[in-house]
């Protein structure tokens, strides 16, 4: 499929997952990502050696993912904010057991049941662990439908490479909007063999164990340290970001996903007013692109973080800036999307 096709973000994730070899999907519908589960049902139920289950709850779904992932197959689930909260126990178990899988969160307004409009209020949950214990997800934040495709495919590779759950963190708008996309042939990636750990029948060999616990604290500490080594490697090798105009900017905006898209319009509008705005757009939220932010803060002394939340990513930006520049914040929440004009007005305050 090399020609262009017009897709909703949610559908595009589904097709990308299938292209990446995902044949197992377990989920429970929730607005605004239900098109994804519908797409997987339509496609996977017609495929050989594939399985689609609409589970009885998000808890069941994530544990089905855990089971399938333990056999080494590529497996995915998806939900939106409240549903992702329900999955946290399972995600923590999966991280502890070091089995790869992909979880998609198309965020909506919160907290609680919130509403069904787009938001970015789950940044903390996604990047800081979300469930209990010392673990992280690999978190990818697309900002177009094409990027939803590309990053979903990457998420499966990264999850396999690090034996760690990966999350696509989008929002309702990215899921619902339509853009033309392509499913390009991808270069083969060298990934580690799964043979040494998968549960696929142990006839003729010693059984493998996939366990999310150890009652001996010194062993459990070692397990934690092993997992922690992966996060160090992720920080070293897998950081991704996009930067625009950061050389001589009067002010740098840090934004991801939908908001970064809006900021690109802001940059053009500001240019007409003679204001030079730069953008750093984290594509990986974990590992976070701290080095480029830190480096930029040595030259440019004004930062503005814009989010569809009341200020979550700003904490990581501040840690990266480490006092070298002034870091301001603008955010909308509850499902309200900031307009380019509103952001332009806001940044004028700091110039």
């Amino acid at each position, binding site marked *: 499929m090399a020609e*262009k*096709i*017009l*897709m*909703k973000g949610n*559908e595009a994730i589904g*097709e990308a997952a299938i292209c990446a070899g995902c044949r197992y999907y377990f989920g429970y519908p929730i*607005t*605004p990502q239900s*098109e994804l589960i519908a*797409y997987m049902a*339509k496609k996977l139920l017609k495929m050989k050696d594939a399985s689609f289950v609409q589970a009885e709850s998000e808890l069941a779904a994530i544990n089905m993912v855990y089971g399938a992932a333990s056999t080494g197959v590529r497996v995915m689930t998806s939900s939106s904010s409240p549903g992702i909260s329900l999955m946290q126990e399972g995600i923590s178990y999966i991280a502890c057991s070091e089995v790869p899988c992909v979880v998609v969160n198309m965020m909506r307004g919160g907290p609680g049941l919130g*509403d*069904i*409009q787009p938001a970015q209020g789950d940044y903390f949950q996604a990047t800081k662990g979300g469930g209990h214990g010392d673990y992280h997800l690999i978190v990818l934040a697309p900002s177009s439908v094409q990027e939803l495709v590309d990053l979903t495919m990457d998420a499966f590779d990264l999850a396999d490479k690090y034996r760690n759950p990966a999350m696509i963190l989008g929002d*309702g*708008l990215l899921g*619902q*909007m*339509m*853009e*033309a996309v392509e499913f390009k042939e991808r270069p083969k990636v060298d990934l580690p063999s799964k043979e040494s750990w998968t549960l696929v029948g142990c006839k003729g060999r010693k059984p493998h164990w996939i366990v999310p616990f150890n009652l001996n604290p010194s062993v459990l500490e070692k397990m934690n340290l092993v997992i922690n080594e992966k996060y160090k490697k992720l920080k070293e090798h897998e950081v991704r970001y996009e930067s625009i105009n950061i050389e001589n900017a009067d002010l740098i905006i840090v934004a991801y996903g*939908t908001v970064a*898209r*809006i900021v*690109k*319009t802001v940059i053009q509008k500001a240019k007409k007013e003679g204001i030079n705005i730069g953008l750093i757009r984290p594509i990986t939220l974990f590992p976070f692109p701290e080095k480029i932010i830190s480096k930029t803060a040595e030259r440019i002394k004004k930062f503005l973080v814009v989010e569809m939340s009341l200020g979550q990513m700003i904490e990581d930006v501040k840690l990266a800036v480490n006092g070298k520049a002034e870091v301001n914040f603008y955010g909308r929440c509850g*499902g309200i*999307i*900031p*307009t*380019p004009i509103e952001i332009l007005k806001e940044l004028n305050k700091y110039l």
Partner: protein
Amino acid sequence: MSKRIKIFVGGFGSGKTEIAINYSIYCRKNYRQVAIVDLDIVNPYFRTREAKDALNLKDIKVIAPQDEWAYAGLPLISPEIKGLIQDADYHLILDVGGDDIGTVVLGNFKSFLQDLDYEMLLVVNSYRPFTQSILQIKQMAQEIENTSRLKISGVISNPNLSIQTDEEIIKQGHILIKRAAQKLKLPLKFICIDERFSQKLKTENFKEAVFYIKRFMKLPWE
């Protein structure tokens, strides 16, 4: 196109809402009383209700879930709709949700509609998943007819890749949709083209009527 009631159906994301909005504006130029009904029980965003103010300004009645219910994501159907269907003074445009699932709602009105002056038009964009081939388009038409228990009376060609559309995309897509309409033994009513192509793609380039579309559902950065 003189039928009093027009029902726009089609695949999910085929462009029904934009077409229905534009069509209601066109209709208002010819008739005094025009109403558009947002019957989308599937989509949570980008629905007719979002163009309500613009349409009200043009003196077009918009029937859609109101106030906090507008964002509820619930399958709400106003009792007003049945009244309008039976009111011979109103020209009525029904914007129905996508796929067979979105069409379920029409079952509600079948007994009212069947004897009235209506037509049900299938909107097709050949660049959408599940309507990319003649076979798929036929299947979509069948599923929609089965679920709505109403007959499709014509096809609307809407070939596009949103902002990445070009003239070739429109022409190629239109050829396929035309062939699908022939297979379905349905008339191709008109082709929809974004108004930005109105200079390059003129009415004389097509055998069918051309309907230029102005986009109402904009993204926050546009």
